[in-house]
């Protein structure tokens, strides 16, 4: 997929509108999903997705191919989100109902109801993490980027990504193992 994306990127850079459309169809759902997890409503997520792709087209000639197109796209999306956060209110944490509704839209990846319930609470705990740690969890686990891709997209060192992930896992492990959580 990466090679295909690179080819489409080259063609789009050469003015191929079809290639650009295909790039959009390949990545818009991932970018929208990321924004949707970070924002509280669909409109903001859609707006941020449009801003992101607008910046992609204006910056396409400056894409140096030092990273994959996906990483570069997530980097742009991160900056768009940061700018949006700077001029708007802080993001609201997603409610448990949203996660339930979100999980109910497609085939469930969870094995049983207990696991789904644990996952729902886990996602809710993630939303309570610090912003930097939360972004790392979103990109690495939700968006499926590797450690190096996550570090490139956020503009931080790989060691920082590892540290933040370790910090997130420590918090999540400690909170999921609390009796109160287990009793829920």
């Amino acid at each position, binding site marked *: 997929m990466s090679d295909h994306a690179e080819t489409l990127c080259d063609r*789009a*850079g*050469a*003015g191929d*509108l079809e290639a*650009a*459309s295909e790039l*959009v*169809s390949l990545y*818009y*759902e*991932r970018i*929208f*999903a990321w924004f*949707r*997890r970070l924002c509280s409503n*669909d409109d903001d*997520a*859609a707006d941020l*997705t*449009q801003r992101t*792709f*607008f910046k992609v*087209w*204006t910056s*396409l*000639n400056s894409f140096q191919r030092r990273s994959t197109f996906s990483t570069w796209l997530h980097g742009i999306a991160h900056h768009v989100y940061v700018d949006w956060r700077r001029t708007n209110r802080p993001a609201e944490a997603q409610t448990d109902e949203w*996660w339930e509704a*979100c*999980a109910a*839209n*497609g085939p469930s*990846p*969870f094995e049983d109801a207990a*696991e789904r319930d*644990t*996952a729902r609470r*886990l*996602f809710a705990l*993630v939303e309570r993490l610090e912003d930097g740690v939360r972004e790392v*969890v979103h990109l690495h*686990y*939700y968006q*499926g980027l590797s450690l190096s891709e996550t570090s490139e997209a956020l503009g931080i060192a790989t060691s920082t990504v590892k540290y933040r992930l370790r910090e997130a*896992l420590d918090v*999540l*492990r400690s909170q*999921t*193992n609390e009796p109160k959580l287990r009793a829920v």
Partner: protein
Amino acid sequence: MNDEQIETLLRKAPRPVAPAGLLETLQSNIALPPRAETARVNRTETTPLLRRWFPAISFAVIFLSCIVAIAVQTNQIAELNRGNETLRGATQNLEQLRRDNAEYQKLQAEHQELERLRKDFAELQQLRAEVAQLREQIQETEKLRAQNQQLLAANNQPAQSTGNDDSFARFEADARAEAESVYCINNLKQIGLAARIWATDNGGVYPPNWLSMSNELSTPKVLVCRGDKGRTAARSWNEFGPGNVSYEFLNPNGSDKTPMVLLARCPIHGHVGLSDGSVQSGSGLGRTFTIIVKDGKQVYTPLNKRPDGSPYE
């Protein structure tokens, strides 16, 4: 829960579904930048040809310059090496020629010295022959004298015998004086020859005194003139002293490069030995030279006219 379980659940996070129409909106909003190739072509066309090729041309010029410089330097080094080889060979020949020339000069000098010694030896032989001839004359005179005395005794004629005796005595005295003069010349000749041999062995400098020539002179007897009745010859060099020499040594420590400087002189006969080994007779009306003092040395000077005023031939 452990970390692995947490990570597994996190990776199963549900993906929110994009609202309908978002894809169409995004695709309709695509605004691609101008084509990079077109811009590149335009940039290429607007850039002057020389400016575009300047880096390559500069590199090529520098590269060619380096190659030319290296070639020129290599050629110069090769020429210098050849020149060095030639000079080295010439230097070896030069050293050989110098040695040959020095040897030739040395041989030539020795040859000249040998020729001079031969000439001196021939003159010495001639003097010896004259001495032998005079001795024969003396012996003949003695014989005639004995016959004359016998004749006088036989005839018993005192008056006549007295006259014959006087003339014979004068003749005998003249002959003896002539023999002594020749003998004196022979002595001076031997002294000059010995002094030259000594100078040859001592860097062209004559000996400081008579005793220094003890190796060159065969006997100290040659230092006494037979006309000098007040002096006797030493029997050996061990007994040699100031009283055993008749001649004046006039050029001690002198150089053999001044041939006309007097080396020795006989105060009895006036004969002089010059520094070149020759001997000039200083007795009688046939004297053809005078002696002048120059730089403290007595120098032999030939006369243009005879003492009686007639020119020399």
